[in-house]
């Protein structure tokens, strides 16, 4: 408890400094509203249901896009590592599209699928798929040859070997790729909603900012930032549990 207090005290110091700076109007309070005012605005948004109403479509888009990306991405990555022809076809494409900024696709997904959920899900799917593909590819490729040989000598078929040897040994790298994808999903969700959307958290931020209700805007911005942080922490805890067998085997 005390260790945590010492560890996180810089954040407390920053919060107090923020409060004091805006309290004494060192910078204008519209540019930096006091934290207490932001807390009040947050409670207002929560009680009026505005926050939940906009969070639901955002999380739906992010979740569906990310799940599709994980499914397709890990299958494609493992297939690329395991069958040469797949790699010959898709390898250069992955390499060419990986560095491409995915937010550039926002106007195109809007042209194809309109302003609703579809265009955001497509964007998040495309953006999140590549880190998962690369993680799965690197993970499956680095499967130890000895394990493959022993599984084969014990009479494992191709599919059996895939399931029992390749996928478990690729799992840590896949999980790493998914972590990158998770962060990207939040970024793409907010950016696409800020630029074109009718509802969603990103849209709410843009709307409140344009209206000049800055305390409420800060409240939503901090909420999204915290959600991204919390999702990452929860994911890491889950990943540790999933990979617990590996630590046990290594130690």
């Amino acid at each position, binding site marked *: 408890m005390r260790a945590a207090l*010492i*560890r*996180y005290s*810089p*954040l407390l110091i*920053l919060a107090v400094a923020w409060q004091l700076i805006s309290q004494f109007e060192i910078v204008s309070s*519209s*540019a930096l509203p006091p934290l207490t005012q932001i807390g009040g605005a947050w409670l207002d948004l929560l009680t009026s249901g505005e926050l939940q109403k906009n969070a639901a479509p955002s999380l739906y888009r992010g979740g569906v896009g990310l799940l599709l990306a994980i499914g397709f991405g890990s299958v494609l990555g493992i297939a690329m590592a395991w069958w040469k022809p797949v790699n*010959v*076809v*898709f*390898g*250069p*494409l*992955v*390499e*060419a*599209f*990986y*560095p*491409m*900024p*995915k*937010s*550039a*696709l*926002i*106007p*195109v997904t*809007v*042209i*194809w699928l309109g302003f609703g959920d579809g265009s955001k899900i497509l964007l998040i799917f495309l953006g999140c798929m590549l880190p998962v593909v*690369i993680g799965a*590819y*690197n993970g499956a*490729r680095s499967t130890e040859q000895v394990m493959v040989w022993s599984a084969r000598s014990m009479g494992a078929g191709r599919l059996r070997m895939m399931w029992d040897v390749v996928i478990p040994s690729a799992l840590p790298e896949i999980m790493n790729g998914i972590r990158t994808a998770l*962060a990207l999903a*939040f*970024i793409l*969700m*907010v*950016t696409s909603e*800020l*630029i074109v959307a009718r509802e969603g958290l*990103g849209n709410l*931020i*843009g709307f409140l*900012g344009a209206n000049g209700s*800055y305390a409420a*805007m*800060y409240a939503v*911005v901090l909420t*999204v*930032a*915290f959600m*991204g*942080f919390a*999702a*990452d*922490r929860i994911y890491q805890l889950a990943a540790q549990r999933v990979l617990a067998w590996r630590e046990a085997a290594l130690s």
Partner: protein
Amino acid sequence: MSTAADPRSAVVRLVWAACSFVAHTASIVALLIAWELFARSGKVTMFMLPPFSAVAERIWSDAVGGKLWIDLGLTLYRTFVGFFLACTIGVVLGTAMARTKLARWFFDPIISIGFPMPKVVFLPVVILWLGVFDVSKIAMVTVEAVFPVVTATVLGIQGVGHELIWSARNMGAKDRELLWQVLLPAALPQVMTGVQVALPVALIVAIFSEMAMGGFGIGGVMMQASRFADSRGVFAGIVEIAIVGYCLVQILAFARRRLLRWHQEATAPSTV
């Protein structure tokens, strides 16, 4: 392998390089041909998917007219100023965090909370503070790109072996010499990895902030094209961005190979 002077081996190597180049580009060419055929098949309208030839023609006319270079220059200017700021701040801050207790105590929770956050949500706040011009775009780029550099630098410097530091101290190295001649070079592979992550991030944020704030640049022009339902302009932007992103990543990979020529990783086979 025979000596380089042998003309036959030079020819073999040239053919080999040509073959691997063809194999490498074949699927991209196939994709472009499929795009062209699909767009001309009549299943989709010109608006949904303009043929690749039309998009290439558009890029060509923009390039000849000079418009392309202005927008490209603006985007790259915003990307690179933000990126260099992020690298400088990141390495300095990371070194400070790895070497002094006070800096680590203060910045560690901020970095560990800030890194996984989607920082693009702070866009309206940055606009509120710095306006909609270059300063705010560069600030966005810097804030987003600094995190991978800081974390990589901290890990890199903390990972420098004690034997190296002790031997340098033993030979009478002062703090500054230790930093420049031992710690930073030894941490360079990891720092470069952070920098390689940061550059595409910088480009993404630069283009996104142009889309959201306007002010030309490739992102701004794409958004404008999209508002006027000019889908050739939108696709031209995407092709341009894909090429620029690919080139930047390749340049950094090349720089890494040059800078780390002395390191054992230079001889190891690379992964994607």
